[in-house]
């Protein structure tokens, strides 16, 4: 039995198979409409996240399965003091697969160690968010026709943004990737990503403060939200949140074939005036999120559709 805790749990070959499956699901949805008949997905969300939870639920429903679960810790037995280990033991009796989001880092790993069913990490604090990374990789691979040989700019909150950390770790395994890290000094990537992933693997990267200075170099621009909940005080949040806003004027500096990605939800870091720009693919990316999760559920449940 396999779980998904980090995007690195899968080899690049396994990811290729998963993405081939996701692309096939996109083209032939009817073929997969009953692949999970009789199966149940438990969505255990200790921290509210409508988007990710609905994406998981849509994925399971698209496969013909059913969903059950809770949407925040207050409506679960954790409020009574139940441990993650005990919760997953019980969930294992009710469902065939579990997607868990928790505000504490490592909670889904603890669950996986006590589970009889596959556990998917649906985000654990500021640590990992692997299904977002699968979504990002699938979007990039589909638009770029391959993963590799590209320059990607990551912009915004690179310190607390777990999607960014996971994406860098995942992309670092492919050939000829250049990272351009765009953030205020206070929100630069953590040392462990810089040292253990980029420097130690001799991966080309640079850290800059101004988005305008590098826009013309990018094949992909990955925007992120400056998340209020990651700050310890309001003042820091207010001071930094508007530093990096992508608008029409900035998009004029970008290449014709540069794509803009965003894990969503956005606040104001991407102006609505560029939503109709064909290079703005963040809503398409959300759709790929469902295909990626469908492919993941099938893979972890070891279900094959002919």
């Amino acid at each position, binding site marked *: 039995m396999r779980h998904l805790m980090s995007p690195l749990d899968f080899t690049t070959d396994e990811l290729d198979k998963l993405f081939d499956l996701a692309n096939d699901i996109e083209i032939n949805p009817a073929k997969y409409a009953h692949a999970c008949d009789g199966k149940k997905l438990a969505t255990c969300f200790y921290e509210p996240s409508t988007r990710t939870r609905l994406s998981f639920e849509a994925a399971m429903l698209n496969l013909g399965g059913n969903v059950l679960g809770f949407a925040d810790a207050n409506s679960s037995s954790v409020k009574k003091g139940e441990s993650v280990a005990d919760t997953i033991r019980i969930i294992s009796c009710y469902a065939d697969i579990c997607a868990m989001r928790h505000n*504490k*880092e490592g909670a889904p790993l*603890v669950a996986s160690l006590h589970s009889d069913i596959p556990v998917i990490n649906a985000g654990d604090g500021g*640590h990992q968010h692997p299904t977002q990374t699968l979504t990002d990789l699938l979007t990039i691979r589909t638009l770029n026709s391959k993963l590799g040989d590209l320059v990607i700019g990551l912009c915004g909150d690179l310190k607390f943004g777990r999607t960014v950390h996971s994406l860098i770790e995942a992309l670092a395994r492919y050939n000829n990737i250049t990272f351009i890290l765009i953030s205020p000094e206070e929100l630069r990537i953590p040392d462990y990503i810089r040292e253990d992933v980029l420097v130690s693997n001799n991966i080309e990267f640079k850290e800059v403060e101004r988005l305008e200075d590098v826009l013309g170099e990018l094949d992909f621009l990955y925007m992120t939200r400056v998340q209020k909940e990651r700050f310890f005080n309001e003042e820091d949040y207010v001071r930094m949140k508007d530093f990096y806003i992508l608008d029409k004027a900035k998009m004029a500096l970008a290449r014709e074939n540069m794509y803009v990605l965003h894990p969503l939800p956005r606040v104001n870091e991407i102006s609505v005036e560029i939503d109709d720009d064909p290079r703005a693919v963040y809503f398409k990316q959300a759709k790929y999120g469902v295909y990626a999760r469908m492919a993941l559920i099938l893979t972890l449940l070891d279900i094959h559709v002919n």
Partner: protein
Amino acid sequence: MLNVGKINEGFVLDHIPAGTCMDIYRDLKLDKLDCCVAIIKNARSNKMGKKDIIKVEASVDLVDLNILGFINHNITVNIIKDGEIVDKKELRLPKKIVNIIHCKNPRCITSIEQELKQIFILTDEKKEIYRCKYCEEKYKRIN
């Protein structure tokens, strides 16, 4: 000067930085041993000025030297037989440490689930970096 006699069979932990022997006594769980243990604090040392020494009249196999490797691999482990040093054990960094150090990340699951073992994994032997198994937070070593 205070004199503590030789031991006949057992092991001696020498060159312990002065003032840290009680931490080592606790971490190696020497209190659990049913044998004679001598703790010498602030002994004179040509090399270190002052040092601590622990003498244990028991087989070295009863303690986890990996833990000592993590705490301070500059400590000398002398194996004693018939009152003489017959071997010196080389200390190595253990691949995994259980319940010796605690994760200080307030966002880690170990901060709320008290029954979880505190497990750290050696992720970079060259740089001596240990990370929490659960949240991957780096453990900041003092020495």
